């Protein structure tokens, strides 16, 4: 089926801890494929993203086809099928944030990091991704940094966050 990547056994592709965690997730559901999201998150937590080899291994472990699992993985924008930087920023682009001029913030972010939306900064430090509604329209504009919600954004707030992140990178 897969020609570009050497076929390896489940043992080689996933660590024992990962396999155990996936099995534990499966036990919560009536059907194994139902644990697909949990399984993808388990691998992502270990490795930062889900590569093809891990996707095939998980599909086999969950008893579903690689295409079906790929459908799940690509549906959710917090599951990464490409390598991401050490930090991931999801900038909300829904209507409330848009009314609060998230566009200017996006431009600022892109300029400071010298990247476009969807790219990773050259140092591999920060990945910038769009997000459809983070669910805090009353505190727009908002973004999510490594799973943490940051609201009432403005340029200064953004700069201080980036300073912190980039300082850590240099230090």
């Amino acid at each position: 089926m897969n020609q570009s990547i050497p076929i390896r056994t489940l043992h080689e592709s996933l660590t024992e801890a990962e396999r155990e965690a996936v099995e534990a997730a499966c036990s919560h559901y009536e059907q194994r494929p139902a644990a697909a999201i949990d399984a993808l998150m388990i691998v992502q937590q270990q490795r930062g993203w889900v590569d093809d080899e891990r996707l095939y291994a998980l599909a086999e472990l969950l008893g579903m086809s690689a295409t079906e699992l790929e459908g799940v993985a690509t549906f959710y924008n917090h599951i990464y099928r490409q390598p991401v930087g050490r930090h991931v920023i999801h900038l909300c682009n829904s209507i409330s944030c848009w009314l609060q001029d998230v566009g200017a913030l996006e431009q600022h972010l892109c300029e400071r990091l010298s990247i476009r939306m969807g790219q990773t900064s050259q140092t591999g430090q920060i990945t910038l991704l769009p997000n459809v509604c983070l669910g805090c329209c009353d505190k727009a504009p908002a973004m999510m940094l490594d799973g943490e919600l940051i609201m009432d954004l403005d340029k200064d707030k953004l700069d201080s966050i980036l300073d912190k992140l980039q300082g850590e990178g240099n230090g």
Partner: protein
Amino acid sequence: MPMSEKVQIHIDDKSYQVEAGQNLLQACLSLKLDLPYFCWHPAMGSVGACRQCAVTLYKDKDDDRGKLAMACMTPVSDGLRVGLGGKQEQGFREQNIAALMTRHPHDCPVCSEGGECHLQDMTVMTGHHARHYQGQKVTFNNQYLGPLIKHEMNRCITCYRCVRFYHDYAGGSDLCAQASKNHVYFGRQQDGVLESPFAGNLVEVCPTGVFTDKPFNAHFSRKWDLQSAPSVCGHCAVGCNTFISSRYNSLRRVNNRLNPQLNGHFLCDIGRYGFAYANSPKRLNEIKLNGKPADWSSKAVQEALAEGNWIGIGSAQASLEDNFALQQLVGEENFVPGPEPAMWPLMAMHLAIAGQKPMASLAQIEEADAVLILCENLNQSAPRIALSVRQALTNKAKDKAEELQVPRWQDAAVRQLQSDNPVPLIYFGYGEQALQRQACVFCVCDDEEAARQGFALANLLHNRAPQKAGTKVSAQTHQAADILRQAKKPLIVSGWSAGNPGLLAAAANIAEALGDKAMLCLVADKANSVGLGLLAQKDQCGNPEECLASANAGLLVLADHSAKSRRWMSKITEQARQVVHLSALQQEGNSSLQLPIAAEGECSATRVNYQGYAQPLWPAVTPPGQSLPAWQWLVNLAKTWGHTLGQVEDLRQLRARMISVFPALQACWADIDDPIALQTPRVSGRTAMLANQSVHEPKPPIETEAPYRQSMEGQVGKGNSQAYSWWPGWNSNQSQHKFSQERGDLSAALLITPSGQGFWWKWQSAWQKINGYHWHLLPYKGVFGGESLSLEAAPIAELCPAPGLFIRADDAALLGLSEGDLVCCDEDSTLFELRFTDGVPPHSLLYQIPANHGFSLRGCELVVLADEAQRHAYQLARDTQRAGQAKDQQAKLRQLLDQDRLIPVRFIEGMG
């Protein structure tokens, strides 16, 4: 709610009586009203995904505001008040299509769907004729999906029909919706051949040009330029109804023709792409005597065909007309029903059972609430039946939905309920294909054991059913008995594929034991196996073995292209005085005279399906070169012999003789007063396409008896008599969705009338196999490569897998073999790739081999690992074969394209 119940609904203040239980969209289409839609499909139900079929629902007469609703999600109910043509709903539908079209590239002129595109039709219907969207279009990468389907993702309007068909309906797991929002993508995880044998239906299921017919694209014509004819698939015993289409006298494509009792809206890929054997480089276009072109009137040919002692060998791949003419010519006592002796007892058993019990149609199969399959490899022998069995497995979920006040056509709800409401599928047999994997009871055994357990099962269900003494009743048989007892509409399926008549007898006994509630489906071997059997059943018929033993006979053979029949033929031709093959493809060896005959789509013919239904098929082209329908050669021969068959002047007279033998056939060829045109009213180039040869417009070829004209003169046709799918405003095949309930008028005739009398079959010792080998070799055909004619079609040949030997992993471990090893059986020269599966009975191996590849072993002592030299030779042979296939295909395509530019002179009446 029973479907016959009527309710009154009001559409735009007009009252209509419609059938209860359906949805509003269905009702509107059945009333000949135009309501645009995308995601709904008559066979797949409603999901309300595309939002296109919006209507306004009013509470009562006084309500003047109403609310928008999707017609496909609204059940019809008495007094329902609907607005269809008002500003509100029309405006919504126009804007909805505008939104869907923001992704679409408007590339109709270079899209092969153009002219038969549902999206085009619907866009015109909504009145969305001006483009306002100024933004960027999303663009996608296309995938390589194999030799059958071309992928062009940019054209997608995200109706989800493709995955609902491929994944949900047909059970393929390698095509899914990917990503989300404006990036939704329908494809595989990576490039690769689509695995499902029903992938070809994506071409018709997709409302636009995302999935198109790849072989058709390579030699393309617009639908309006095609000359199409109603036909019947010739690759298995189901007899799916098709349209076969041509341009410039070459066959271009096959697509589905709605027959609610059989194929419904879908075909398998063998049926859709297998017709291309007619365009194969191996096609026989001229008379050949000892391998060299010859002339009919030449002395040598006439001498070879001189009157004398002739034996006729019929073929299940040939039509009823051809076999009938052959039988008339040589006499019933000299007629042999096909060149595979193993098929004769199966044929007799099938007809005997069909004479007692009716065979379930595919529509009936889809109503079953429990299914037992007795050692029949349905996935190969009749893929379309396997697809129907798959639909039966949703019935309990549909019942449950109805119990919860959810209509049966609410597809998403029904799919949710399916895992908790399974329809039991019981499988006795071997193998590991889609249906086996879904079985809740799976008894892994060979055909003989399956037949024994079948007899035991009948005995458990009814104490009068005979049992084979000494059978150890398996636990699965007891389970099966419990399931079948409780079922309201159990279905018993078996067939010829394992080659054991005992299976048919066992299936008949089980159906008899279950009484009237049971449905029976026995799958015959080839497209006209049952028709051939009916001819062979006549009283005068001699024993084939005896008549073949007569010395110094000549053989008149209707070709059968499988390797099995070739092997048997090579044995009996050794003693023959003369061998004459009537064949559409060149015969290798042992044939001194070959007469070229018309193939699928080139002449009128009739075939009898597994149920005993005779169905007519009509030609879309004239036969190439010197080819004639086989019956015509036989009539010509009868003329030189002074035989009474020689008095037949045309097809009408031949058929009159057939009717005197089978009176029921009358209904099959019922006259249509006004001829129907095979070309569309707007076919182009009518007067110009032959102008390089003659400025006179040639007379179209006329076939007596056919109610069709190979021209644009004549009516368009209605319902099932249509030559192509069309309805005013509906140029795509979705025009068939209109009034699909009313299409009962099929021109088919049931040639076998079941008596309904009960009968118990007794076990016969002939069904027992005496096989002293260590390993029993069981035949296990694949979908692609399992049928011999379609293997001559280039795209199918490309998909045919290498010979495979299936073994249990534990057995292989004992032998020290691993998966993928190249092995052979004892000293046999055939090399197999070793594959592992649990579906292998003890002491057995399953062998999968292309139907045109000879292999005769029934058992072996050793599985031998190939040495380095063998492996090298094997790889070389495969590479050469692949390269050869590709080269042949290219050459043939070039020739066809050249032919389009220069129509052969013979196409013109009187100049051939």
